[in-house]
């Protein structure tokens, strides 16, 4: 039985569990022209649940601090990893994507979150991500690799050079939409009702799927767009998990 947040609460006070601690960058992987995965060494790291995030805090030499939340993109049993997309004029992401080097460290707290989290079950899974919204979904599809439910993935990126996890998505048979570029092997345009119907049909062909669970993560506009389509397609609100990151 998986350890639930509730049992962790009984064991460790929340202030202690969410204390800031050092995360050492042990490896760094360029995922696209604008995103990078940082593999982290964190003393006393406990396994996380797929879909949870870390709060990251940077402190400037003058004491100024900035805090942001980043989804864990690693599977629950793996070394913790976050995938960061560079935000133009951002305070934190350009440093994490372009400047920090292996051997350097920053502060983190977590894992955090119990809402955008996949609870292992036999229900089919539909995962739909836009841009770096694929990060928590990678954690979920890796966690679900050993479970029976079919996992159907829809991804959206502006262009090939902005797509993260391209090879992994291809090996998983994901549907990948490019919104600003035409390229062979990819579908062009936004995720629309037809694309969504295909994804839902793939999930439903395997089992009776009145209980399919749909995770959607991406920029706020993307998530609103997909959620509207899902509601129109008859997906129940309580079967959707939405994560907008701005």
């Amino acid at each position, binding site marked *: 039985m998986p350890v639930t*947040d*509730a049992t*962790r*609460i*009984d064991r460790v*006070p*929340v*202030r202690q*569990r*969410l204390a800031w601690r050092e995360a050492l960058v042990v490896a760094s992987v360029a995922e696209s022209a604008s995103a990078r995965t940082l593999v982290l060494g964190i003393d006393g790291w406990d396994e996380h649940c797929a879909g949870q*995030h870390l*709060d990251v805090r940077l402190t400037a030499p003058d004491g100024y601090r900035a*805090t942001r*939340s980043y989804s864990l993109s690693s599977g629950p049993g793996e070394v913790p990893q976050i995938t960061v997309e560079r935000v133009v004029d951002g305070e934190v992401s350009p440093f994490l994507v372009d400047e920090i080097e292996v051997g350097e460290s920053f502060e983190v*707290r*977590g894992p*955090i*979150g*119990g*809402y*955008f989290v996949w609870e292992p079950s036999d229900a089919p899974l539909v995962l739909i991500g836009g841009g770096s919204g694929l990060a928590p979904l990678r954690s979920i599809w890796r966690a679900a690799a050993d479970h029976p439910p079919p996992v159907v993935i829809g991804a959206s990126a502006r262009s090939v050079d902005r797509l993260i996890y391209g090879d992994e998505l291809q090996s998983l048979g994901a549907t990948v939409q490019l919104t600003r570029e035409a390229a062979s092997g990819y579908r062009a345009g936004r995720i629309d009702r037809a694309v969504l119907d295909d994804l839902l049909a793939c999930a439903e062909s395997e089992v009776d799927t009145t209980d399919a669970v749909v995770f959607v993560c991406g920029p*706020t*506009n993307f998530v609103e767009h997909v959620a509207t389509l899902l509601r129109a397609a008859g997906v129940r609100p309580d079967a959707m998990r*939405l*994560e*907008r*990151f*701005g």
Partner: protein
Amino acid sequence: MTHVDGNAVIGPLSVALGADMADAAAVCENCGLRHAIAECHVYLRCPGIVMRCPQCGSVEIVLVEIAHRFEITMSGIAALSVIGGQT
């Protein structure tokens, strides 16, 4: 200005209140909707963090961290439900 989901505020709110907010729920004082804290619409680039009801948009909680203190205004919620009781 665009909002993010309540997940972004689970960390600071949990530390401020000393209870895990990951599965917490709130009842909006204005419209009565009961919803997960993670479903709040959160505005991060304010002086402090502003959390709004996902249904009616009214301000529920404002969290400000300043000089090693948390200042929390909760006048927009009628109830808060938190996991962690001993029974």
